[in-house]
């Protein structure tokens, strides 16, 4: 029998911006088992809901993650709005779609850069992040923030964007679309990139579904699952189909994210075409009483906000189930059988966000 070695991977590792630990059991260079450890920086933000007014907590929700901060805040708002049966104005609904899709574009570009960095393609990493800066500029122009938007609120949004500015944003995105195509073509066609991704870390459709994988991790294995199809915000008025790939390997997960970049630009363009003039928020009176599980699609997949209220100004319970938490079992499935050198790439293909997981 081949001698087994246990290699600790993380919590500090060049490929990991945040702490997660894996005990990798190896036979020679091959991984035979992986056992995860999280919880190094668990913040207990769910508990804070008992001390923050339900309207103020949106600021905390936004700070759960620095990448998909807007969608965290929005999903919290949706949960409360559903309990309070608030009719959010159409303009606010479309603005939520626009900011959600800008978040997705910047998150996917960030991921592509990190991916390039993980297999040592530094110039590709820099080009990708240069494009991401342009998206962050748009976010800053429309919200005033590059990381925390501060634009979601219970009952609507805090900031309006003029129709002229929205049209300019679409023009800018069309320009970026060409540049994104040039860069992503490298991921799609380059032999050295494909060498690291094709046929590596295959997750079957059945495993992806049964292990509760979400987002591009599930869609890269052929599971057509996208919470935007629920029609929250103004997604019910946007034409799109979930992007799926079927090979289930690292390349497939990468391709899903690349195709979603162009899909998001199209969705923003549709939202700008359809957005109506009108108010951006509805007046909130009273306090919530009831419960709701709000589900939305973050760049990494389905996020769930369960809110329970009893008529007071503080919620009784808030539970946040983030996509990375749901994708860890899928990661543990694809690691056995892989080469040790591929582990960083495999971990990155689920696009782990430990900040979300350690909410």
């Amino acid at each position: 029998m081949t001698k087994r070695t246990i290699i600790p991977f993380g919590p500090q590792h060049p490929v990991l911006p945040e702490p997660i630990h894996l005990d990798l059991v190896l036979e020679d260079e091959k991984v035979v088992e992986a056992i995860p450890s999280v919880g190094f920086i668990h913040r207990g933000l769910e508990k804070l809901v008992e001390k923050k007014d339900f309207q103020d907590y949106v600021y905390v929700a936004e700070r759960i993650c620095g990448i998909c901060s807007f969608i965290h805040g929005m999903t919290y708002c949706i949960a409360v709005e559903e309990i309070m049966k608030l009719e959010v104005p159409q303009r606010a609904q479309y603005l939520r779609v626009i900011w959600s899709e800008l978040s997705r574009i910047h998150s996917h570009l960030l991921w592509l850069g990190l991916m390039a960095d993980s297999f040592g393609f530094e110039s590709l990493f820099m080009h990708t992040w240069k494009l991401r800066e342009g998206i962050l500029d748009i976010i800053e122009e429309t919200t005033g923030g590059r990381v925390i938007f501060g634009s979601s609120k219970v009952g609507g949004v805090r900031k309006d964007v003029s129709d002229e500015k929205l049209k300019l944003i679409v023009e800018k995105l069309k320009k970026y679309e060409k540049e994104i195509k040039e860069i992503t073509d490298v991921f799609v066609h380059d032999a050295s990139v494909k060498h690291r991704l094709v046929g590596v870390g295959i997750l079957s459709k059945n495993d992806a579904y049964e292990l509760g994988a979400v987002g591009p991790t599930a869609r890269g294995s052929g599971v057509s699952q996208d919470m935007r199809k629920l029609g929250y915000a103004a997604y019910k008025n946007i034409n799109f189909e979930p992007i799926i790939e079927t090979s289930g390997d690292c390349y497939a997960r990468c391709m899903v994210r690349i195709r979603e970049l162009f899909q998001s630009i199209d969705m923003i363009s549709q939202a700008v075409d359809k957005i109506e003039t009108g108010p951006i928020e509805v007046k909130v009176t009273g306090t919530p009483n009831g419960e709701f599980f709000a589900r939305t699609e973050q760049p990494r997949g389905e996020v769930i906000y369960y809110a329970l209220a009893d008529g007071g100004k503080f919620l009784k319970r808030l539970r946040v189930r983030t996509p990375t938490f749901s994708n860890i079992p899928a990661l543990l499935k694809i690691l056995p059988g892989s080469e040790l050198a591929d582990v960083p790439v495999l971990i990155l293909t689920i696009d782990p966000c430990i900040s979300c997981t350690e909410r």
Partner: protein
Amino acid sequence: MIEEQKIINIEVGQLQDKVKGCFEQGYRLVQISCTKLSQGLELNYSFDKNFEFINLRVFLSSADTEVLSVSNIYWNAFLYENELHDLFGINIKNIAIDYKGNFYRTSVKWPFNPPTEAKND
């Protein structure tokens, strides 16, 4: 409303059968969570199939009540069950990968449902 959300109240002893039923019908385990009530605790097992969202709800009179793990049916449940133990002190038996209280590094024992006597040593 964005979607209908069905809540089904069950007894703790029915949990294995009901969860197995969900698995056989092709539901995906979406999440497991706990809520501390004024008296007792409430577990929510959420499932989804083609955007049909259902919840199995189990009432526990106390955290000591023994709950059988469902990680033998849905393997990914082990993460949620370790979380329930570390944050609420729920007594879950037979978890596929049991961290025995070391899943989260918390400064106090069971922060969401603290034991009356003391903090962690």
